[in-house]
């Protein structure tokens, strides 16, 4: 069978946690869209140990990007990718079997270049007992629908036509965090719309420890406080010190958790706010950036 030019290039940056790829690869293996229609790049972002190309499934191409930061890694793959539609996800995600097929159909049905935000469902792992952190993350983690309504999406499940990159440029490779929102904003300003297609879903494992929650917070805050224009940074700094009333409201009206679980969510949200203020303060004084 002659392999035609792939229609889709899937791009996944990876730092250290190669053990996660077992689930990811088996989910990609099961895609209903024929393999000849897509290619997949894993961009290693400076892990201590990296598998050889020969030890990876046939549909995976290994790239290396020594420059730290997942957005630099994604940009690296843009140079090698040949697909019309660039599909981004993360190494800890498990795409549904019809993920690529749904994205491709959506892409074809759109008359002008459009960003496609797919669904992200935070799932608890079957192996571990759900604790309070898991409950919190299932309720509040990665609210792609909320993001999409504001015109952006997380790279856990975001598809971008090549034409959009040609028009607005690549991701901001210097960022460790928030490069997805920044890119979507740039695209929005150029008049490129975003659609949200929840059925093109990937599952994302719920975090289950306080440390995991705060690692992300640190990374996000680093992105907000340390990069971008001064005005934007100031906005984020001020925002940090305002109580997260909106998040409380979102938690109370959240349908993903039971009524009994809502106080837990609010309690953890409050703890996170306090931590967030402390982190921001530290970053302003002189902290290190978190890239995990």
């Amino acid at each position, binding site marked *: 069978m002659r392999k035609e030019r792939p229609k889709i290039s899937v791009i996944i940056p990876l730092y250290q946690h*190669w*053990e996660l790829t*077992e689930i990811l690869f*088996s989910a990609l*293996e099961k895609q209903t869209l024929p393999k000849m229609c897509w290619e997949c790049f894993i961009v290693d972002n*400076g*892990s*201590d*140990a*990296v*598998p*050889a*190309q*020969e*030890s990876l*499934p046939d549909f995976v191409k290994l790239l290396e990007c020594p420059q730290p930061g997942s957005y630099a890694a994604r940009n690296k793959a843009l140079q090698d990718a040949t697909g019309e539609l660039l599909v981004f996800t993360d190494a800890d995600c498990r795409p549904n079997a019809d993920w690529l097929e749904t994205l491709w159909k959506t892409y074809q049905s759109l008359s002008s270049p459009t960003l496609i935000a797919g669904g992200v469902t935070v799932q608890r792992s079957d192996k571990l007992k759900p604790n309070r952190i898991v409950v919190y993350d299932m309720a509040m983690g990665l609210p792609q629908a909320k993001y999409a309504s504001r015109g952006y999406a997380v790279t856990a499940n975001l598809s971008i036509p090549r034409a959009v990159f040609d028009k607005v440029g690549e991701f901001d490779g210097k960022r460790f965090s928030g490069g997805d929102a920044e890119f979507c904003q740039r695209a929005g300003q150029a008049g490129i719309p975003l659609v949200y297609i929840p059925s093109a879903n990937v599952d994302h494992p719920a975090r289950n420890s306080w440390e995991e929650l705060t690692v992300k917070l640190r990374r996000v805050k680093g992105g907000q406080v340390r990069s971008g224009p001064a005005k934007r940074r100031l906005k984020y700094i001020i925002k940090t010190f305002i109580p997260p009333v909106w998040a409380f409201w979102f938690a109370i009206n959240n349908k993903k958790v039971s009524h009994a679980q809502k106080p837990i969510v609010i309690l953890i949200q409050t703890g996170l706010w306090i931590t967030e203020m402390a982190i921001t303060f530290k970053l302003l004084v002189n902290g290190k950036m978190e890239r995990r």
Partner: protein
Amino acid sequence: MTVPEVSIITPCYNAMETLPKTVASVRQQSYAHWELILVDDHSSDGTYQHARQLSSEDPRIITLRLKQNGGAAKARNAGIKQAKGRYIAFIDADDCWEPDKLMRQIAEMKKNQWPLSYTAYTRFDSQGKLLNKVGVPQEVNYRQLLKTNYIGCSTAIYDTDIVGKVSMPELRKRQDYGLWLKILRSTPTAYGINESLTHYLVHTGSLSANKKKAASYNWQLYRQQEKLSLFKSLYYFAHYAIRGSLRNKLPKLATVLGIHYRLPK
């Protein structure tokens, strides 16, 4: 792709000469549900290329490469992290297994729910000349193991269903000993099969110098890794030193004293 039951970890550093034989002995196993994780510790000879070649020939062989030379502990830990199997086995890139090693050992481990097991082994020199056979006790606990390390790295297998995924302490030497001790802190006993199922390659070199170094690493392991008190460290170190020299110099006496084990005839 089927999930392997046993993950075999092999750190490789400039092992071009010996690795092919090691891998061949794994591929000749009568037991087939394994994956072999070759972790290249940034070799400067053709080891990495050779490993990749092996991976493309046999999908059960997985090649990893460390970005920079990190030592055997780092290499083995990278392999453990990636391992998919329930059982974690080790074989160094200069050792070999008997064809039935995995079948015999895994069967025993399953039947008896052994968390950690080891076997007797045969030592060879680099010319392939048989030096001696080293027997093992039927079982060993934490305190016994502190006195003598009976567990040869290339003979050991542990069950992640019982003890979880345990990594090696990142020491320069004796990391394997450190791992067995770590496992024996969470489970009471490790079990031995007193049958030589592994061939060990003994590198010739300045033996007395090596022994001094080994002794110093042992001391560090007691003090820093196991955090034993000075008194306890001295106690176990005395055991280690006296038992070691008895086993070496007067194996017959050591056997009578029950600190040296022979293989059944």
